[in-house]
């Protein structure tokens, strides 16, 4: 401790994250000379691809921005089109969409927590190595993921790139008996989630904080997921269609992904941001888990995002049970409204697993897209990850930590954000 250390860490294509990003840390005699988070992913130019396309194409194409959160992209896309055409979805459609969204949140968070994060805390290379020593955990992860995926199939037609979700509603409604079975399985999953909380409670979450601004949708009494006002922990409040003044994207050299800022040099979105901004509207069971795991708003420890994801898993399972009760408590209505296109523009803001996502399209009178914009959670987090890495490197250098430890903690820091890099570049 206290000795002046020197190291040169270059991590190309960080593993156990989605997409391609690099970490660089250079420390000389205990002083951080350079530290950065560089996104090197290839852009696919979705905003250009959409130009000239008929409205019906938008959700199908935009779902392909990301495999992990394709449901969120599809729903944000649908919402942007519906807002542009001044359509209001029926209560039944709203409930089904939220339920579908919950299935994605659950599947994505579980995948992240068990497959990508747990190996770091258990000192292994991949989840495959956990199969023997931690067989129960792996089984539990598979069970939870399967449940979420089956729910995605049931509501959306397909867990990945859904087939039933369309502008105006759904092509088809889920089978009511299967919905009741899903409810039972969700209920049984609560025990698995409590066990997961025990497991994560046994992990030593690294002690590191850097104050930042948290951006999310704003609670209207319910924990927010689809549409509504935008809020920041520094007190900024905006309407959905004013998203540009919330995201403020800009380019930096050495990153193919855009960056964002609001009141400070960087901002954070994601599970921790949502919980920091909307703790009171979480389900009481989720609040209990948060309290037990030491997550108290406002938490500025980015590693706590892992805990926040777990807390959200509990919330979405509890909320899904209520949603199914509501759906089963009323008769099925028409699944789908007819769409009347008009000239105009619309925004769709949705909380996807990694944070707030915006889609915006402008249409001509025939309903063809003339311009499009998609602002991705990870691109909003990139600047924050970058400044966190600098601060973490400084802290660890001051403590005289060795290369190996700095390397691992830097990797874990980036992983805690669950970055979705292909998505951020799109």
């Amino acid at each position: 401790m206290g000795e002046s250390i020197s190291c040169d860490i270059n991590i190309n294509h960080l593993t156990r994250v989605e997409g391609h990003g690099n970490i660089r840390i250079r420390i000389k005699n205990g002083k951080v000379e350079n530290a950065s988070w560089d996104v090197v992913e290839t852009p696919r130019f979705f905003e250009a691809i959409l130009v000239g396309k008929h409205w019906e194409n938008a959700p199908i194409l935009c779902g392909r921005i990301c495999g992990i959160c394709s449901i969120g992209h599809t729903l944000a896309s649908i919402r942007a089109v519906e807002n542009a055409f001044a359509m209001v979805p029926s209560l039944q459609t709203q409930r089904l969409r939220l339920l579908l969204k919950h299935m994605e949140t659950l599947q994505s968070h579980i995948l992240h927590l068990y497959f990508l994060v747990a190996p770091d805390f258990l000192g292994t290379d991949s989840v495959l190595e956990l199969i023997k020593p931690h067989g129960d955990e792996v089984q539990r992860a598979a069970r939870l993921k399967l449940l979420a995926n089956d729910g995605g199939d049931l509501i959306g037609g397909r867990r990945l790139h859904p087939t039933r979700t369309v502008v105006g509603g759904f092509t088809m409604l889920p089978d009511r008996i299967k919905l009741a079975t899903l409810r039972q399985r969700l209920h049984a999953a609560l025990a698995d989630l409590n066990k997961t909380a025990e497991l994560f409670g046994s992990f030593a979450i690294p002690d590191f904080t850097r104050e930042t601004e948290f951006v999310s949708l704003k609670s209207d009494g319910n924990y927010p997921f689809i549409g509504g006002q935008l809020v920041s922990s520094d007190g900024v409040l905006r309407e959905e269609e004013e998203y540009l003044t919330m995201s403020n994207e800009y380019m930096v050299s050495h990153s193919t992904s855009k960056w964002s800022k609001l009141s400070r040099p960087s901002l954070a979105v994601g599970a921790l941001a949502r919980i920091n901004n909307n703790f009171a509207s979480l389900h009481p069971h989720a609040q209990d888990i948060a309290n037990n795991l030491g997550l108290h708003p406002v938490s500025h420890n980015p590693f706590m995002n892992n805990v926040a994801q777990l807390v959200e898993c509990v919330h979405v399972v509890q909320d899904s049970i209520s949603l199914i009760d509501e759906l089963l408590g009323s008769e099925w209505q028409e699944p789908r409204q007819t769409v009347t296109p008009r000239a105009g523009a619309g925004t769709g803001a949705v909380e996807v697993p990694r944070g707030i996502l915006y889609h915006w399209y402008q249409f001509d009178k025939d309903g063809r897209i003339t311009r499009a914009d998609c602002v991705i959670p990870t691109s909003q987090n990139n600047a924050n990850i970058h400044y966190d890495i600098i601060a973490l490197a400084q802290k660890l250098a001051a403590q005289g930590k060795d290369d190996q430890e700095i390397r691992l903690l830097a990797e874990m820091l980036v992983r805690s954000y669950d970055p979705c890099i292909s998505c951020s570049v799109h």
Partner: protein
Amino acid sequence: MEKSKTYLGVEIKRPRTAFFELSSCEGCQLQILNKEASLLNFLDLLEIVNFREAMSNGSDDYEIAFVEGSVTRADEEERLLKIRKQATTLVALGSCACFGGVNQLKNRFHDLEWVKNEVYGGHPIETQEVRPLSDFVIVDLSIYGCPIKKEEVEEIVTNLVLGKSIDHPRYPVCMECTANGNICLFNLGEPCLGPVTRAGCDAWCPNNRMGCWGCRGPSDEANFSQLQEIMDSHNIPRQAMLDRLECFGGFSSAIREMEK
């Protein structure tokens, strides 16, 4: 995991396998991790030595390489050539790898400068025309779909490991849809590429009352003039059909043919 497996009394070896991604949504790799009930058995067929999304410390000593995504930048071209050199069997995983996928829609603008400017407003960003793997290297096996269907992948991979031949269905999705007893989507006023798209997904979209968008590319001897007739007889605008045909890249030669 089991030490050795046998098939018809003959010992089979778990091939050293690697997964890679070029420009893609990584959805096809995610599908590999899905179907949890049989996931462990599936993984047991292979010795996975490289899967960046799921493990650290990958190795470059592999026999089978699954490559997801299309080529959109010079460095991806290089990576692909390197993978080809190492792999005995190179598998194109998903429509991006097979046909360019949704990514290739940017090619329709012909002017890359406009495309770059539209998204990055003059900021220097490198990109090139989107190409499928087969434009650069020999592809030994294609797994179609956007996303790929895990059931089909399991079957294909099992055959690969056993050294059996792999045959894709030659018939269109329409046959699977009919066999499933669905109402034809044309009768519900919905365009569908089922009549010309290669089967193998078990009519995934039509089963959910969504017309097929042709993600698996053309079936053998697809009849496009007849598709046009069906569309016309149901008053479906030509543009709706073209939008679908160009969506995943598999029909690019058919579209050129139709535009003649």
